[in-house]
C-alpha cells in the first residue's frame, strides 16, 4: 500500500486489479468466463446497448394529430399542384404539398425551420434533390456560368437523384400562400409543406415520416444550447394523394392564394 | 522512569517520552532516533518573508495580467475598432481643407483590378456650407420628400478632391450636436441617396473627376445646436469640421 500511495494517479487501477485478482483466484475457468461476460454486459450498458435498435415508428395517418417536439401536427391531406404562391417549378415538374394543421404547444415561439426538420421530404417519390436547386440558381446566371454536365444528370436521372440529399420543405400558409416564419404558442396554422416533384411521378400515396424532436438544454458536443434536435423517425405512414390544389381544402380562402399569382 | 531534563531546557513538551532519559541530545525531536537526519529544520536565518520568497511571481503577476487582458480584448480590434468612426485623423474649421486617409478592404466591385486588396483611400474634403433649409429638393429617384413635422433639415455643402477612381462607398456626413447626438450617421441620406459623397449623376461608387462638389441633406431636432460635421467612410478614420 505504501507503494501504491506514492504512485498517486493509478492507485484506483492498482486497487481494482488487486480486487479482481483476489476474486478471480478463487474461481473456476467457467466462473471466470461467466463473470467476464457479466462485466462486459455491465460495461456496455451506459452506451445504449439495451436501447431498441429499431426505433419503432408509430403509424401516421391523415386527420390524426401527433405530438412532435413543440408542435402538434395534424396532416390534413396531400396533393400535387402545378404552382403555389410564389413557387413555380421547372417546366414539366409540379409541386407536392402536404397540408397540415400545426400548433405550437409550448410557451415560446418556434421557427419554421424546426417544423421543417420534423417533416423531411418523402423518399422515393421523385422529389427534386438539393443539387437541382443549386442548379436553378445557376440557370439565372449568365450563360456559360453553369456546369453543362450537371444539368441533364440532375433532372433526368431520377434513379441517381434518390441518393442525393432531398431539400427541406418550403413552408407556406395554406390559406393565403404567405410565408409563416414563426409559430407562436397556442396558434394553429394551416400550412402547406411543399417540394418540387418530377413531372413523371404519378403515385397514389406517398410515404411520410415525422421525425422526433428532442430538446437539447445543454449540448455535450457543441456550444449550442436550448434547441430542438431531430432524432429518430417517430411516425410513419402512407398518405393518399389528391390531385388538387394543396390550399383548396375545407376553407374558403384557398383560391385567394392563387389569385395573387399571374 | 524519571524525567531528568526539564522541558524548559530541552525545548520539548511534557510528552517527550521515554527516550529522553537515555541521554540523547536535547536537539532531537521526540520519536527521532540518534543519527537520523532531521527534516528541514526551520530556516534559522530570520525566516525569509512571504514577499521575498515570491518576489519573482510578484514581478510576473502584472505582466501576466496585461497579457491576459490583451488576449481577451481581441474583440476590440477585431469587431469594434474597424466598424464606426473612432479615429479622428484631422480636425479643421468649416471652410478649411482636411485630408482623410484610411485603409479599407476592396472587393473589386467597381474597379476589378483592386479586388481583394487593402487600398489606401485618400481624399481632401472641405465643408463649404452648412445651413438650415425650409424644403428638400426633389430626389434624383423616387417621390419628393417633405421635412417631417418635428424635424428641421440641414444642407451641407462639401468640396472633394481625390484621384479618380477613389472609392466613395460608405460615405457618412454626420452632424454632431453639442450634446453628442449624431445626426445623419446613415450611409443613406434623407433623399434616399446611398452614395452621399458622389454627385447625383455618378454611375458607380468611385469618383470620376479630380474635384467635385456635393450637397447632402440631414434631418435634425429643432433644438439641436450643431457644433461639428464629421466625414468618414465607415471608419475607423474620420475628419472633423468645427462649425463656428
Amino acid at each position, binding site marked *: 500500500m505504501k507503494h501504491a*500511495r*506514492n504512485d*498517486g494517479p493509478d492507485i484506483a487501477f492498482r486497487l481494482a486489479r488487486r480486487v479482481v485478482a483476489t476474486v478471480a483466484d478463487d474461481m473456476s475457468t467457467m466462473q471466470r468466463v461467466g463473470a467476464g461476460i457479466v462485466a462486459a454486459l455491465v460495461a456496455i450498458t451506459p452506451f445504449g446497448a439495451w436501447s431498441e435498435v429499431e426505433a419503432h415508428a408509430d403509424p401516421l395517418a391523415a386527420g390524426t394529430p401527433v405530438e412532435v417536439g413543440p408542435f402538434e401536427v395534424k396532416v390534413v391531406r396531400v396533393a400535387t399542384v402545378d404552382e403555389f404562391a410564389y413557387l413555380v417549378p421547372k417546366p414539366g415538374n409540379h409541386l407536392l404539398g402536404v397540408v397540415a394543421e400545426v400548433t405550437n404547444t409550448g*410557451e*415560446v*415561439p418556434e421557427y419554421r425551420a424546426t417544423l421543417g426538420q420534423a417533416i423531411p421530404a418523402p423518399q422515393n417519390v421523385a422529389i427534386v434533390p438539393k443539387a437541382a436547386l443549386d442548379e436553378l440558381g445557376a440557370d439565372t446566371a449568365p450563360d456559360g456560368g453553369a456546369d453543362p454536365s450537371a444539368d441533364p444528370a440532375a433532372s433526368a436521372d431520377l434513379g441517381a437523384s434518390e441518393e442525393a440529399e432531398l431539400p427541406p420543405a418550403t413552408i407556406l*400558409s395554406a*390559406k*393565403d*400562400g*404567405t*410565408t*409563416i*416564419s*414563426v409559430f*407562436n*404558442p*397556442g*396558434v*394553429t*396554422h*394551416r400550412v402547406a409543406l411543399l417540394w418540387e416533384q418530377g413531372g413523371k411521378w404519378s403515385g397514389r400515396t406517398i410515404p411520410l415520416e415525422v421525425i422526433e424532436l428532442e430538446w437539447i438544454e445543454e449540448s455535450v458536443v457543441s456550444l449550442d444550447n*436550448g434547441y430542438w434536435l431531430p432524432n429518430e423517425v417517430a411516425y410513419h405512414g402512407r398518405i393518399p394523394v389528391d390531385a388538387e390544389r394543396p390550399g383548396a381544402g375545407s376553407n374558403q*380562402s384557398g383560391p*385567394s392564394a392563387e389569385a*395573387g399569382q399571374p | 522512569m524519571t524525567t531528568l531534563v526539564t522541558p524548559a531546557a530541552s525545548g520539548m513538551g511534557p510528552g517527550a517520552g521515554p527516550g529522553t532519559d537515555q541521554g540523547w541530545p536535547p536537539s532531537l525531536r521526540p520519536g527521532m532516533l540518534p543519527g537520523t537526519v532531521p*527534516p*528541514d529544520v526551520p530556516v534559522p536565518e530570520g525566516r525569509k518573508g512571504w514577499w521575498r520568497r515570491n518576489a519573482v511571481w510578484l514581478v510576473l503577476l502584472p505582466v501576466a495580467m496585461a497579457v491576459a487582458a490583451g488576449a481577451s480584448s481581441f474583440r476590440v480590434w477585431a469587431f469594434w475598432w474597424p466598424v464606426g468612426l473612432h479615429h479622428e485623423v484631422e480636425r479643421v474649421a468649416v471652410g478649411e481643407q482636411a485630408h482623410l486617409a484610411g485603409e479599407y478592404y476592396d472587393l473589386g466591385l467597381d474597379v476589378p483590378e483592386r479586388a481583394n486588396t487593402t487600398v489606401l483611400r485618400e481624399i481632401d474634403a472641405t465643408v463649404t456650407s452648412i445651413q438650415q433649409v425650409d424644403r428638400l429638393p426633389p430626389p434624383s429617384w423616387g417621390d419628393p420628400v417633405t421635412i*417631417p*413635422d*418635428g*424635424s*428641421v433639415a440641414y444642407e451641407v455643402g462639401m468640396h472633394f478632391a481625390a484621384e479618380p477612381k477613389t472609392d466613395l462607398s460608405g460615405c457618412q456626413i454626420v452632424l454632431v450636436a453639442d450634446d*453628442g*447626438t*449624431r*445626426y*445623419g*450617421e*446613415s450611409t443613406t441620406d434623407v433623399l434616399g441617396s446611398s452614395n452621399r459623397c458622389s454627385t447625383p449623376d455618378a454611375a458607380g461608387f468611385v469618383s470620376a473627376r479630380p474635384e467635385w462638389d456635393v450637397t447632402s441633406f*440631414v*434631418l*435634425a*431636432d429643432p433644438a*439641436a445646436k450643431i457644433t461639428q460635421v464629421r466625414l468618414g467612410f465607415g471608419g475607423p478614420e474620420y475628419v472633423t469640421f468645427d462649425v463656428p
Partner: protein
Amino acid sequence: MRHGRRRITWKGTALVVGGVVAGCTLVTYVPQDTGVDEPFIVEGAVGEVLDLTYAELTVTEVRVADTLAGVAEAAAAGGTFIVVDASWRATQGETTFVGAEVTDARGRRFWPTDQAGCSILAKAQPGYAWRATYCFDVPRDALDGATVRLARGDQGEEHAGQRRDAVAVVDLGISGREADELWQATETVSPQEPGYALASAGGSEG
C-alpha cells in the same frame, strides 16, 4: 516538509475538498447579483412617450385584425393579429430596434411576423420619429392582459441582447370582456409601410 515527492496528507485532502465544497456552496446558495443581467424596464401605456435613453418610444395604437391586407400580399391569422403601431425617435445615433415581443398574462411569448408588410424591426436616426407596425399572431387566450416589449436589443436566447439595457414594456390595455369582442370581430387592417411619424409622437392617426 521533505524535499522531493510530496505526500498526500489528510490535512491537504481536507483543504482541497473543503475548498471545493465551500466554492460550490457559495455558487449554489448565495444569490447571484441578478441586477447585472437584468434589463432596465420602462413601463408605460399606449400613447405615452417612453424614454429609453437611446430612443424615445411611443406605442401609438393597438388594433386587432383577422386579416392583414398588405401591398404585396394578404395574410389570414392563425389566431388573431395584434397590430401594434409604434414610433421610434433615436436620441444618440443611428439605431436598429430589433426587439419586439408580446407577452401574455401567462408568460407565453409571441414574436412578430413579417407577413403582409409588417415590420419585425425598425431602424432610425436622431432628428425624426420613425413609425413601424408590428403584427403578432396570437391565440384567443393571449389577448387579455397582454403587453408588448420593445427594445433595441434582441429578445432571442432569453432576452440576451437586452441585458443591462433599457427595454419598454407597454400594456396593450386589453381586458377580459374586450378580449372576447376583439376575438369575434372580423377586422381587416392594412399595415402602413414604415415611414416618418406624425408630428407629436403621442398622437395617433387612427
